[in-house]
């Protein structure tokens, strides 16, 4: 018996060593990626922080670096994100619900599923080319906020669909069965039980999709977003009837990443700190959106009582 126990101890010792090594490796990798993120952020902050004055947010771009601001860029980014969310949310959630709750299991839905998953991996420039051909030239929507929003909406659609499905799948089958047992129709079950319980996961997916979209440059450049815009789109609300208008949808626009891109390639080095400041705003915006996703998920989880 004695040698057997000894062997066992050696084996356990070796496994423990592996555990420790793997733990160390994992922690090291995590620290590395955090360090890189922090280094990038600090680098941007050192270069751009001085430019982050209120004026920077309230000024239009200019040929003089000191007077240039990101007003048209951040307004453009916000409006484009609004259209993106309005386009991707209903379509994506509906598609996710259908695939998960309604779709029959046959080869057709298999094909749809495989395609949705593949679409998530398509490079964003492809969506830009699609939008250029379809939205800009075919539907004649021009280089407008609507075009950009729909393009980015298409791009994040797979993310929204996949996260909707995952959130729905996390709702226990017993909940559905209990509701069916009480005589609820499929739509009532989905609306009153499945959707409320999965809303946190869905919102997380949407926000993560949006925070990817807000930093996206390639598809927006492809559809021909402009670089120098020193005016704002028409206001969506006004004091005279009909109070709300949608002219802003067809307005030319620019967005933060494009403004940044333009400043980086300037000969005057003063524009580099403008670009860094715009980058800082973009990073903070993304972090804020991700934080909101976490908070929403936390809040919605607390509400659920099964």
């Amino acid at each position, binding site marked *: 018996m004695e040698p057997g126990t000894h062997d066992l101890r050696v084996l356990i010792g070796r496994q423990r060593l592996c555990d420790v090594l793997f733990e160390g490796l994992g922690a090291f990798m995590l620290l590395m990626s955090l360090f890189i993120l922090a280094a990038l952020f600090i680098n941007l902050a050192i270069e751009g922080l001085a430019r982050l004055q209120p004026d920077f947010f309230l000024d*239009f*771009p*200019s*040929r003089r670096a000191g007077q240039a601001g990101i007003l048209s860029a951040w307004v453009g980014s916000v409006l484009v994100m609004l259209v993106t969310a*309005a*386009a991707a*949310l*209903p379509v994506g959630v509906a598609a996710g619900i259908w695939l998960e709750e309604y779709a029959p299991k046959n080869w057709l839905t298999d094909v749809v599923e495989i395609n949705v998953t593949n679409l998530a991996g398509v490079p964003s420039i492809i969506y830009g080319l699609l939008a250029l051909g379809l939205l800009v030239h075919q539907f004649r*929507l*021009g*280089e*407008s906020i*609507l075009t950009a929003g729909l393009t980015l909406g298409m791009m994040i659609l797979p993310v929204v669909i996949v996260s909707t499905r995952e959130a729905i799948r996390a709702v226990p089958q017993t909940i559905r069965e209990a509701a069916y047992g009480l005589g609820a129709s499929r739509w009532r079950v989905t*609306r*009153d039980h499945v*959707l*409320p319980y999965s809303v946190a996961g869905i919102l997380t997916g949407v926000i993560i999709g949006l925070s990817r979209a807000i930093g996206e440059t390639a598809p927006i450049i492809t559809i*021909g*977003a*402009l*670089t*120098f*815009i*020193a*005016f704002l789109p*028409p206001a969506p609300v006004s004091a005279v*009837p*009909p109070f709300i*208008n*949608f*002219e802003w*949808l*067809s307005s*030319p626009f620019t967005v933060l990443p494009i403004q940044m891109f*333009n400043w*980086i*390639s*300037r*000969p*005057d*080095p003063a524009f580099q700190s403008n670009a860094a400041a715009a980058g800082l705003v973009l990073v903070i915006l993304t972090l804020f959106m991700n934080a909101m996703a976490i908070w929403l998920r936390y809040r919605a989880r607390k509400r659920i009582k099964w």
Partner: protein
Amino acid sequence: MLPQQTQHILCAAMIQRPLQPTGIPMRHDVRLLPVLVVLCIAACADSEVDGGPPGPPRPVPTPLVQIDGSSTVYPVTEAVAEEFQARRGGRVRVTVGVSGTGGGFKKFCRGETQISNASRPILEQEIQACAAAGVRYIELPVAFDALTVVVNPQNTWIDSISIEELATMWRPEAQGTVSKWSDVNPSWPGHPLRLFGPGADSGTFDYFTEATVGKAKSSRGDFTASEDDNVLVTGIANDANALGFFGLAYYSENRDRLRALAIRNGSGPAVAPSLQSVADGSYTPLSRPIFIYANADAVNRRPELREFVEFYLTHAQDLIREVGYVPLPDEAYQLALARLSRGDTGSVFEGHSEVGVRVEELLQRTPK
């Protein structure tokens, strides 16, 4: 497409909470509200963009001048657009894009823009595309762009370079055979020669190869290429054996990190790039005029567009100096304004660029 009136009614009906028979609003339907609102927005927005049936009268939209094209011309046009909008107090909107000279002409000939920025004259193919679409244009030189050949400040063996030496360095046959400075000129040291230049899609690259090697786009491929000139600046500033070229403005901003070479053309004296030598035409052949092309019919139809072009030609001199480019001589702007007021359409280049032509001469030719 539904009539707009019907859409509004539909939307209003959708947003109203349906009542249960008892008259108590159904609780859960509130959740659907955002979705319905979004659908309404989508439905209403549709008719807006398609131009749809006329709704209630709307105020006249602010006129919009759309400009796109070369990234070389962009800083000049941007400065003019900024100043013009400031002077007009926002009553005219101007947008400037950067699609490259070729991309700009594509949009221009489709009628999507009214002005195209171009760092080279319009090409035969583009002339045909514009003609097919019925777009007539006025060709207006607005400034000079000077290519600067630069080396690292630690380079001690060279102050000037001849066009022939540049050709030896850059022609396609040099790939693999000219890899040391001494391969170009035996009196130079045997250090490795590392070359930097803009990418093959840029008009700057086209012009440099045409002016040195003699044929546009004809160049060796083994050099460090970047569309971002700041990458070239950094590359040359960090490599004692480097040589590269880009626009004068990038050199002017980086005088402390780079050294510009004087250029010897044929048997002439070496001429260093400067505002003076470019403006008086002695820095040749590496300086060229850059252009805007204005849609002739739009200029005649839209007073604000004509005002913008006139503003461009009258205020360009100061603004151009400010952004680091070289303005044309006074006389050239007068000739350009005259061409605008006569409405002479067409190009004087007959579909191909020319190297080393004086800009006044260009403006005195009759465009075809």
